[in-house]
């Protein structure tokens, strides 16, 4: 479970301060597939980065499975990300010098597991995303959709409690977007995987269990009530 209370993020651009998040309080339960939506510049990705420990909030608290993660130092956050969180980025964010299998295996290797076991885990996850025949390919040899599936496999290899996806379909056509979204939905339904995904595509909402709307760095509560009548923030 993720709980965020009063999350603020202020960016300093020279002398100018820009408040990207102005005090967001949210709760995401285990096993939910949550979409974070809102207009461009509303703070969706910023919120995801704070919840996913990729950035440090300027204010507020974040709890993951009851643990206050907002006070962790850089080293502890890195370790926490490795063990408990998975990430899928808009631009796939794969390591060009590693092949498909190695890209997926690297978080497992970092956990200190034996190499053969890491490769077996990676191959198994790649099988689930339909890339068993691409293990030894370098990433630039794959299509955008395939690269995003490698990215999803990498996010899952350490069996994280939460997967964060930052506009994973932004660079994909509709067909590949559907493949990725179906994959997320089956992971969520079949494995109970908690998924938090940022999107600005209206048609993606059919896949989410719940949607969090953001506007100008704050929760868009009117829209929330409208879209999720049963939801308590």
């Amino acid at each position: 479970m993720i709980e965020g209370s009063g999350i603020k993020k202020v960016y300093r651009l020279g002398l100018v301060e820009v408040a990207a998040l102005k005090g967001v309080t949210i709760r995401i339960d285990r096993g939910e597939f949550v979409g974070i939506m809102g207009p461009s510049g509303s703070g969706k990705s910023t919120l995801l980065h704070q919840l996913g420990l990729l950035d440090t909030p300027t204010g507020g608290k974040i709890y993951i499975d009851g643990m206050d993660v907002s006070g962790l130092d850089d080293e502890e956050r890195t370790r926490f990300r490795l063990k408990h969180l998975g990430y899928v980025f808009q631009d796939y964010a794969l390591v060009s010098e590693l092949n498909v299998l190695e890209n997926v295996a690297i978080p497992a290797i970092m956990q200190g597991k034996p190499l053969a076991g890491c490769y077996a885990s990676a191959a198994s996850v790649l099988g689930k995303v339909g890339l068993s025949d691409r293990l030894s390919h370098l990433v630039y040899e794959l299509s955008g959709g395939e690269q995003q599936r490698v990215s999803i496999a990498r996010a899952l290899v350490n069996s994280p409690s939460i997967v964060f996806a930052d506009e994973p379909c932004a660079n994909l056509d509709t067909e590949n977007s559907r493949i990725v979204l179906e994959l997320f939905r089956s992971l969520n339904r079949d494995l109970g995987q908690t998924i938090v995904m940022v999107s600005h595509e209206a048609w993606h909402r059919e896949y989410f269990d719940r949607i969090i709307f953001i506007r100008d760095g704050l929760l868009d509560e009117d829209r929330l009530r409208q879209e999720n009548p049963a939801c308590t923030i």
Partner: protein
Amino acid sequence: MGDGRYPVSLYLAVRAIRRGNRGTLALTILIIALVVVLMNFLSMIIGGVVMIYNQQMIDYQYGHVTIEPKEKELYIENSDGLVRSLTRIPGVTGVSAHLSTGATITNSKNGKFQTKSLTAFDPGDETTVTRYHLRIMEGDFLSKGDTGQILIGSLLAGNEDEAEDKVPSLGGVRVGDMVSVAYGNGEVKSYRVKGIFETEGVLIDSSAFITRREMDSVMPTEDRATEILVRGTSAADAGRLKYAIMNYGVEEKVRTWNEKGKGILGDAIASFSLLNTIMTFVCLVVASVVVFIVTFINIINRRKQIGILKAIGIRRQAIVGSYLLQVLFLCSCGVIAGILILNGIAMVLTVFPLRFPMGYITPVIDYSGILLSIVLLFAVSLVSGYIPAWRVANEEILNAMRG
């Protein structure tokens, strides 16, 4: 190891090297190899100069140990007795007494003359200490009973065409020619040139020798010597031999070849060593800048990748470690290539030696010096690789991921 930090460093480094740009890799290795060559080339030549200089000092000038007159005295008295005593000291393999005097040698054919130190010795004794008898280029070495005959160096003999001479000479003396020698006591005597020697050493090949018997006939030497050369079993043993001679009760000044030779070429060698140190420093700076630039460019190009690795939970120590391992690999390859090039140069210069005033120089590879330069090179390279890697690995993840 348990947290996987080191295996991941190695894992990433191996793949970066294997799948990285081969041309950049080869060029960097070549630069490091050339740095290794530059750091060691001059000391290799200096080593060759020192070695030949030392050998010439031992073989032609001082033996392993030289005995000189006591303080404020011009001669070693009772030199024959001392020579006999010295030969009985364990470790002594040869002893030869020298009596040197100033003399003007004139070529009777053309009247050209040179003022030199003329040295007399017993030819039999001399062959046990020096190597002149092995370096006769024309004619013969002196024999014990020789009178009226002189042995001269090739540079003193010189050439008829002065332009071919390296130092002032007698203008082309050959074996069988007559030269006249004017001694300090006013005596002038003609000598037939019995042999001409050539050692390649400028100072040595400008000298002249006669027998002790001949010197006695011109000026009574009264059992005196200006120096006594002693040869032992090895150059390295000279110090022990010196103390053995001193313990034997010899009251004259006893000095090893090394102590005798320090003053003459010591300053030159010290200057060479200073140059070498400066060159080593410059090379280290060049190496560190090269490694810094290569690592920096490498890291800047992979800034986004470093951000990704950090985002998915790879520790920054592992990321920095992977770059340090790449630097270690580059340095190791560069060092191996550099040592191979150095050995190649040494082989070429052994076949085609460099000519110096003291003779032909073959390079001497100082492996302890190479080891030191390698250690320094690795140290500066690791520091130069570490700084940019650490800087980028410490960046905010999202900043790094923007590339």
